[in-house]
């Protein structure tokens, strides 16, 4: 019995047509996500991770446009889907948690109203009373007093607002939740609570999760598989354990060595020279070559293909030959 993946992305490319030129924010991204799996999208500014997350919901803002590839959710290619069908997927099958809880909620609407609108858009036969009841149940699972359903967003702290965002994302029991930097704006103790909450809800409802973050630590802690993005490309794609044990891409390797680990003493951190490329004018060939300690002649000329260096370990680097073995 072949298990069908929940999400299947194939050669995805997304461009932004800005006033100053065309930016390829996401280039040749392919991966599969199984039901209930957690995938981490790690990367820095300009890596394309947020754009990738948004494109799964077809929410890439103007002037962005999906120029190539397929996105299949439960075997349906959503790129060609008409807008009204896409709308039922958004919030219904796929939930999204935005980065900034301060501005993602409508300040003039009560929390209850947010939920009611969501539920009744997707299930129009639900009465307002029913929707409110369901909302109260969700709030209970979030650790928020159900009476607060009549409060406005500004009456909640940042951490609580983010919980409400999570609640809205999971209220309709989606199969997939995409969390885009869900804890960046929050303090570390609140961050821990939010991520734990997300994890427990995920387990209860059996949802798959795509966690997008620049914080490699939280991705390593909580994701089954990880894609490391650099300048729009997938640099490396493997399990968390494998990535930590034996990172193959020079960027990943260096990145891991530049993050302070609070449990270690006398760490020697190493820096990565240079800076992430200007996406209006990325380097020829491999986008990482100006900063790569192992750069070879071919790296400056051609973009390396994504290769399976090991069965479940893909890497985009000329250090790894076709058969997967590390060259030189």
């Amino acid at each position: 019995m072949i298990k069908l993946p929940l999400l299947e992305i194939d050669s995805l490319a997304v461009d932004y047509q800005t006033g100053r030129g065309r930016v390829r924010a996401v280039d040749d991204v392919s991966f599969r996500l199984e039901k209930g799996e957690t995938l981490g999208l790690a990367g820095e500014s300009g890596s394309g991770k947020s754009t990738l997350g948004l494109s799964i919901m077809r929410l890439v803002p103007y002037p962005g446009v999906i120029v190539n590839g397929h996105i299949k959710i439960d075997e349906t290619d959503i790129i060609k889907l008409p807008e009204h069908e896409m709308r039922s997927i958004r919030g219904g099958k796929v939930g999204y948690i935005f980065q900034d809880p301060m501005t993602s909620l409508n300040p003039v609407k009560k929390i209850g109203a947010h939920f009611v609108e969501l539920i009744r858009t997707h299930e129009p036969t639900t009465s307002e009373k029913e929707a409110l009841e369901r909302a109260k149940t969700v709030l209970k699972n979030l650790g928020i007093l159900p009476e607060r359903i009549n409060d406005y967003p500004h009456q909640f702290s940042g951490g609580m607002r983010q919980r409400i965002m999570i609640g809205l994302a999971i209220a309709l029991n989606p199969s997939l939740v995409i969390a885009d930097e869900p804890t960046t704006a929050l303090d570390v103790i609140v961050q821990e609570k939010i991520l734990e909450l997300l994890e427990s809800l995920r387990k209860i409802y059996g949802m798959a999760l795509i966690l997008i973050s620049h914080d490699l630590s939280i991705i390593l802690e909580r994701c089954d598989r990880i894609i490391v993005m650099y300048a729009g490309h997938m640099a490396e794609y493997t399990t968390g354990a494998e990535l930590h044990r034996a990172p193959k891409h020079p960027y990943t390797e260096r990145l891991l060595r530049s993050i302070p680990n609070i449990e270690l003493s006398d760490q020697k951190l190493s820096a990565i020279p240079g800076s992430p490329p200007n996406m209006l004018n990325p380097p020829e060939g491999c986008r990482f070559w100006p900063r790569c300690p192992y750069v070879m002649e071919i790296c400056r000329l051609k973009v390396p293909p994504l290769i399976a260096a090991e069965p479940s370990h893909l890497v985009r680097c000329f250090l790894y030959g076709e058969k997967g073995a590390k060259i030189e």
Partner: protein
Amino acid sequence: MLRLSEIVKVENLRKYFPVQKSFLEQIFARRMRYVKAVDDVTFPIKKGEIFTLAGESGCGKTTTGRLVVRLLNPTSGKIYFNDLDITELQGEKLRLLRRKMQIIFQDPYASLNPRMRIGDAVGHPLEMHGLAKGEDKEKVVLDVLEKVGLTPPQQFINLHPHQLSGGQRQRAALARSIILQPEFIVADEPVSMIDVSLRTTIIDLMLGFRKELGLTYLFITHDLAVAKYISDRIAVMYLGKIIEIGSKERLFLKPMHPYTQALMSAIPVPDPKRKRKPIELKGEVPSAINIPSGCRFHPRCPDKKETCALKEPELVEIEKDHLVACHLD
């Protein structure tokens, strides 16, 4: 008083901000309410060390940093710099002091004047204090840009901030802060808005300048992992007070205050095999307008006792170079 090796000392520092009121409220309200951002903070900084103020947002660390460089004026308390009481310093004396203490800000996109070229921005302190002009100034600027790694400096000197990346802007800000050859720099979350791969570079630059220029740093951060990497001594702040302070080794080896313990347990570790046991804290950080009675942490504390709600604990030395403000047994 100051011991010889102390470059900065802060004593019973308080900063209360009056809560803004509307016109009507001002007429009818009984008493003034205050945001007690910094509430009786005392600590020394030894010459040549990196002293870190750590804590979550709202704990008062940023305000304290600004108080030390006199960008804000304290409500009460004293600040000493090299044996001199600088709390009330004004005018020309304050200006001269400013040559010796500098500050680096968190947001690289806001810390450079968008209308000034990098060379002008970095060199402006020299002009301000009449230390160098024209070609002499240019020489110093080129030299300092080279030092922070903005090479070739001749190219960067004519660029505007919007032509630089975040990491480059922060280097320019760093260059500006060292050009007067200060003795003391307050670094307010200097890397939290910078890409992860660039953080170590900036931190290494700062460490390098400590050696090369004999600098002392007051480092402010919410990231305890960075604090562990860079600090000599650390003070953890909560709701305007220092609740634990000590050498890096002691603090991380044996954190005594329940808040410190909870904070450290919540920090993610870049290792998928490691199973952390985060300590759960009830509720959230209260507002600094209504500070809880007794120990301000007591409503959330997992080890709460009866006295905690009644009496505010003092900072007590429990072992060498390690003080805690807590009613421990």
